């Protein structure tokens, strides 16, 4: 997903020092990645057409794979702006969905 054309054409900008880059990505992963996983769990738990317990189980069991995918993505994106904005946007979207569907 990270090698899409639009990304490949973006010039590489060293907008942050390597150390700052790592810290930004780590924080985005820990909070943003976890947030996306947690909100997806809630969304699945409330919207899956299963019994309450089963929906909770499915939502919680898949959450860690989402967390892992988010971390991989946040450490492979080039633009730090996207590293910050993507989890924020995803979390907002998921939170909105839980409100709409809940």
């Amino acid at each position, binding site marked *: 997903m990270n090698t899409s054309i639009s990304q490949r054409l973006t010039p590489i900008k060293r907008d942050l020092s390597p150390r700052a880059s*790592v810290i930004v*990505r780590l924080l985005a992963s820990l909070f943003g990645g976890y947030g996306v996983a947690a909100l997806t769990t809630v969304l699945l738990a409330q919207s899956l057409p299963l019994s309450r*317990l089963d929906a*909770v189980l*499915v939502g919680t*069991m898949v959450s*860690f794979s989402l967390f*892992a995918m988010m971390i991989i993505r946040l450490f*492979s*994106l080039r633009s730090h702006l996207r590293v910050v904005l993507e989890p924020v946007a995803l979390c907002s979207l998921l939170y909105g969905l839980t409100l709409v569907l809940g």
Partner: protein
Amino acid sequence: MKETFFRSMTWLHTWAGLAVCWLLLLIFFAGSLSYFRHEISLWSKPELHQAVFQDYDQRQVEQQITKGQAYLADKAPDAASWTISFPSERKPYLSFGWADAPKAGERRGKFHEHVVNQDGQQMITDIRDSRGGNFFYRLHFDLHYLPVVAARWIVGLATMAMLIALISGVVIHKRLFKDFFSFRPAKGSRSWLDAHNVSAVMALPYHLIITYTGLITLMFMFMPWGALQQYDGDVRAFRADLNPARIQEKPGDTQAPLFDAARLVSQVERQWGIAPLKQVSITGPGRDNSRISFTLNSEQTVTDRRNLLVFDGVTGELKSLGNPESVTYKTYDTLMSLHTARFADWALRGLFFLCGLLGCAMVATGTLLWAVKIAQKQQKAIKTGARPSIGLRLVDGLNISFICGLPLATAGFFYANRLLPVDMVDRAQREVDLFFITLAVIAIVALWDGLRCTQSWRRWRQWLALSALAFAALPLLGAVTSGQSLLSNMADNQWTLVGFDMISLLSALALGFAARQVSRTKLISSRQGATSRLNSKSATPSTANTLTPRAAVNKKESRDLSLEEARQ
């Protein structure tokens, strides 16, 4: 974050791995030993090695329950719970146990266990206080000396880092299949990379499953949000739904006579047919809210479905048939049992154990690989008299502390089990302390070496040789302190105890072999120049696959070395 996805993943793999590798090694090591926790526990109680072993006997169950209930009513009328545990393959004796009411600040009270002699008459009450295999089991996810919740979060984060390292590792491994068959020994970092690849790829399905299911086992701690939201924050209601049979109530204050548990056996047989039972446990005996639960011995089945029947402890009325049966629940339960291997017989358990050791090898070769590469980079400077960087010395020190330390500390734990005075205060904890003291001694020596810049493979050889000696003498120690030697255990068909001695001897061989190889080969001592010389040869493709005579001689040895040494 780098120019290409591939390079980003390489970076991620290196640093996610390096950040948690020593903790992961501890977790993998303790987890591998946990597959045999009942066996280790049995070994660590030599009082039980004579005259208590018996087979499960269906015809005696009712009588054993009656006897147990009477015994416990006499010994521990005020206990929080009683457990009558029947002989099974892994715990081949009948025992009556009870748990005290938890003291303030404790989640569970202390557990006592008395074992019935083969003749069914005498009781063995004087059993040494030892954590046995449960120490490694708890160490695997609770660590030690730390609050449980904090420790589990630390372990959870390390597991997540492990999952990331696995995924990124697969991504950066371009020739997954081809590398499976290649091992280029005596070529410095190249050989460590090969060993890292082999140990990772050979057991990759195991590594992936064990990591993910590890997260699943504690998932409601790490990711409680779905449950909290659906159950409006009522954790107890959720637990009752998830595990209806296991919900435990505080013993009530009102007294009520306990139902005769043996009279329930016919009802149990109506539900399960004639099936072996694992235990009968009675919570809150003598109170109005007591419960009597029967556990099925479901050793060979993968899911735990319906292995528990719960009866009211006063009226004898059937309360619960066990866990929910939806497909989702079964999936969840299967994932959990894949992690704990509770369905596996001894052979499959052994395979899981070997895969766990390969996991140790993967982690250890990974961090050794890092150290060797950095040492190569600094080689020129070191030759001209500069000190190795602090990072390199730190990693070297942690490597020797954990890779050599864990086997030696384990041996220390087993020696403490047999040599500490039996009536010592807090004995079980002193055994555990000795495990960590051994680790600490090795770490302090490593620190001393690191500060003086005298880190060397000689130190590795010393520790490995010492561990080899310790494990080689373990069967002897066992024979002297329990009165049952390896041969007499063989004669008595006590294969659990025989197995323990055999594994000790095998470990001793492997450690001894590793110690010998470390002193012989220069496989990993890049600081002495051997690695760079061999490496420059392998740089050209034409020579990469033709072994130099020296390398050919070393081929088998160094393969064994890198795996054996690391997996210990």
